[in-house]
């Protein structure tokens, strides 16, 4: 069993805002991240898959194929978008790094080839803040 990681990136706007709360409570909890006019980040996404090394290719998965899948199903949906307004799979969700990592996991899983399983989704919101999701 070998882990293989592909790194991709996207740039997006978002805000942290709970619509069930008052503006004051949102500002108290989320601080400047609640700015109603949005702010944004350069996100860096690390997708790690695991699988057996195939005898004929020496690969867990062709990294080019993994890159294409991540770009098609994740980056195309998120890059240069407003995460709160433009992204179908984040609708009705708080656009935290945590929730985004979980959503990315569920978006990507169905598209991986047989024998290749997702191990982790690591998402950097800034160079100093990142989250990891392992599927449970």
């Amino acid at each position, binding site marked *: 069993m070998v882990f293989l990681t592909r790194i991709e990136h996207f740039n997006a*706007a978002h805000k942290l805002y709970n619509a069930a709360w008052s503006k004051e409570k949102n500002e108290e909890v989320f601080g400047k991240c609640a700015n109603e006019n949005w702010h944004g980040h350069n996100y860096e996404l690390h997708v790690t898959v695991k699988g057996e090394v195939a005898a004929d290719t020496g690969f867990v998965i062709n990294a080019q194929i993994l890159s294409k899948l991540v770009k098609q199903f994740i980056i195309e949906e998120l890059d240069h978008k*407003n995460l709160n307004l433009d992204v179908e799979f984040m609708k009705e969700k708080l656009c935290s790094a945590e929730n985004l990592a979980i959503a990315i996991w569920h978006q990507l899983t169905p598209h991986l080839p047989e024998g290749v399983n997702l191990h982790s989704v690591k998402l950097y919101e800034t160079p100093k803040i990142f989250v990891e999701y392992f599927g449970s």
Partner: protein
Amino acid sequence: MNKKVSVFRKEHFCAAHRLNNPSWSKEKNYAVFGKCNNPNFHGHNYEMEVKVTGEPAADTGFVIDLKYLSDLINETVIEKLDHKNLNLDVPEFLDLNPTAENIAMVIYNILRSKIDEKMDLQIRLYETPRNFVEYPAS
């Protein structure tokens, strides 16, 4: 003997923006600015390097006190730009497209008036780890 030394302070801010020229059609804006024109904005982690060049003072050995420079950048630039929408929240960009080039010039103009004229000032602004600009160009 040339005694000039350059000192640098790095700071960062996170902001949303979009590139749009209001005098152009929607189609032309999209043709020129592509996905950066998204009406709902997108965003970046901007990194900036402020470069101050001058002769170290005889009494302190400093070109400029870097704590003072950091405080100055935070109070005059980061407070204005961090976690903001550059198009909507920052008056300097009401009629100015917030490209990395224009952001660097705005930052320069803010800081230039507050740093001794004897010192040279240059701003390097990273919009992404791979795209960056410098002003003034040298």
